[in-house]
């Protein structure tokens, strides 16, 4: 099974728009999984039919039984997160679920219960492909684990239905959800834009990627936004031997397509859809 991860470091570079176009080209032959569990958007564009939703529990929260509590403060003394108030209430947002409090409580007044962290959805897109996405619970923790859950479900579905290609749309940043989305990838595609922020974030992301020893490629979106930063990205790709799969110029059509909830291929008959097709073919040829 081949797994493509699309990622960007900086938000708003066009990851999801481009990934959605790839999904349209490939249709039912490729499963799509949205690893941006904080702010999943792929389903907005691909108008899914949800076939199944699965509750996801991860980690723990402590709660104190006021009837048993003798207010000895032992729990407050050991909690390094300041999660227990003076009135012996546990703040769910700050509690990390380490269980130290419940271990030291002489009254066994503190119990740990599994924390509800969100939902995973198994769906079908309007391009007839399978889609796995998730929604992290409000103020939910363990987004990295939810990403892993999305990926596990995606692999399970793909192998059950004999689909040998998965496309993951990643989240911005370089923290735990991103680290979780990179594991076991066949190739990592960085979608970047020629701006100070785009360049800077790509370089930090690349430093993270090099730890995984996974092949990597660049898509240069909004390529005519800033010539000097475009050159910087090209130079970076040459020095680090990262192929640039293609360039897509800044085009209001990207926004217009989104407004109509369509992919860029559905609204553009001109050069952009050609570039996207070429980029997709190059990308596929790198892994197959």
């Amino acid at each position: 099974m081949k797994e493509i991860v699309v990622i960007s470091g900086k938000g708003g570079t066009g990851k999801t728009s481009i990934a959605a176009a790839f999904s349209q080209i490939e249709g039912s032959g490729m499963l799509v999984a949205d690893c941006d569990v904080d702010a999943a958007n792929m389903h907005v564009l691909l108008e899914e039919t949800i076939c199944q939703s699965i509750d996801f529990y991860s980690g723990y929260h402590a709660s104190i039984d006021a009837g048993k509590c003798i207010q000895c403060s032992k729990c407050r003394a050991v909690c390094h997160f300041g999660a227990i108030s003076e009135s012996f209430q546990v703040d769910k947002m700050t509690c990390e679920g380490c269980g130290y409090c419940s271990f030291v409580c002489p009254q066994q007044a503190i119990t740990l219960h599994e924390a509800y962290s969100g939902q995973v959805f198994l769906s079908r897109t309007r391009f007839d492909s399978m889609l796995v996405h998730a929604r992290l619970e409000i103020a939910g923790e363990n987004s990295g684990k939810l990403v892993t859950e999305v990926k596990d479900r995606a692999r399970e579905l793909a192998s059950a239905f004999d689909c040998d290609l998965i496309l993951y749309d990643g989240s911005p940043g370089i923290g735990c959800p991103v680290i979780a989305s990179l594991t076991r990838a066949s190739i990592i595609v960085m979608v970047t834009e020629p701006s100070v922020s785009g360049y800077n974030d790509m370089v930090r992301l690349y430093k993270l990627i090099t730890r995984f020893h996974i092949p990597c490629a660049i898509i240069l979106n909004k390529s005519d936004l800033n010539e000097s930063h475009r050159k910087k990205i090209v130079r970076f790709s040459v020095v680090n031997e990262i192929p640039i799969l293609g360039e897509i110029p800044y085009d209001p059509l990207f926004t217009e397509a989104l407004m109509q909830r369509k992919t860029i291929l559905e609204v553009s008959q001109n050069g952009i859809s050609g570039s996207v097709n070429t980029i997709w073919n190059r990308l596929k040829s790198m892994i197959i």
Partner: protein
Amino acid sequence: MKIAIASGKGGTGKTTIAVNLAALVSREFPDVNVVLADLDVEEPNSGLFLDGQIVHSEVITRYVPRWENSKCTHCGKCSEHCKFNAILRLPEQILVSPELCHSCFACMDLCPENALIPIRRKIGTLVHRKTGEIDLVEGRIEIGEPSAVPLIKKTKEYLERAFHGSSLFILDCPPGNSCPVMESVREVDYVILVAEPTPFGFHDMKIAIETLEVLQLDFGVVINKSGTGDHQIREYCMNNKVRVLGSIKNKKSIAERISKGELLITGFPAVQRALNTIYLAVSNRLHVT
């Protein structure tokens, strides 16, 4: 006054609003001491728009356990207790995975032989720069460090230590809706939610609003890259009594200026007016001018 600049979706213009708001207030209201804190520690970019002299920098660490073979009796209490799978008990050794550790100290305190010793692990750096009249404090996470929360916490603690409470604190937050965002907006007076009027922006804004309501924070929306499609956000905000503080138009010339790492407070009078209105609306709301 602490104002967080947040958004659900990435790339809506949080940093743009944060740096330009800081620069504008500092220019137009010289009495206000402006402190801009970049809490998007995974990808901190505020500093790209405001350079300046470093006045303070420090390495930020947290404690993780180190295993001392000579003292260990392999009783396994440490790994039994660890809820994060950061300690693995093998037949001959105890394997610590510091990146999974949450620094709860349970293993170190509970070990009867003191065989797990707290050591400092670098999680990032904090840099405080003075750029003109603006104090810029940036947290920057070590690459490969999974959790941003401890570094955000430490950066906010530095703000408390280093500045007078009467300063205007503008906090540039990370994108998303998970723990790093929660930590960033904790105990702020107001949240400016930057939304873009695309279906993606709208979808993520609704999630962000739900989150802020759960946290019971006061907030308003700025529509960035506005144009066609605004009506959806506008109607949603009206129907749900959410205040829209202002809008900034979607223009390639603005994107080009930002791409160079330059500010919008000269040459873009409409942006300037919008930021001014946003600032006055927020400070009136908080009864401070």
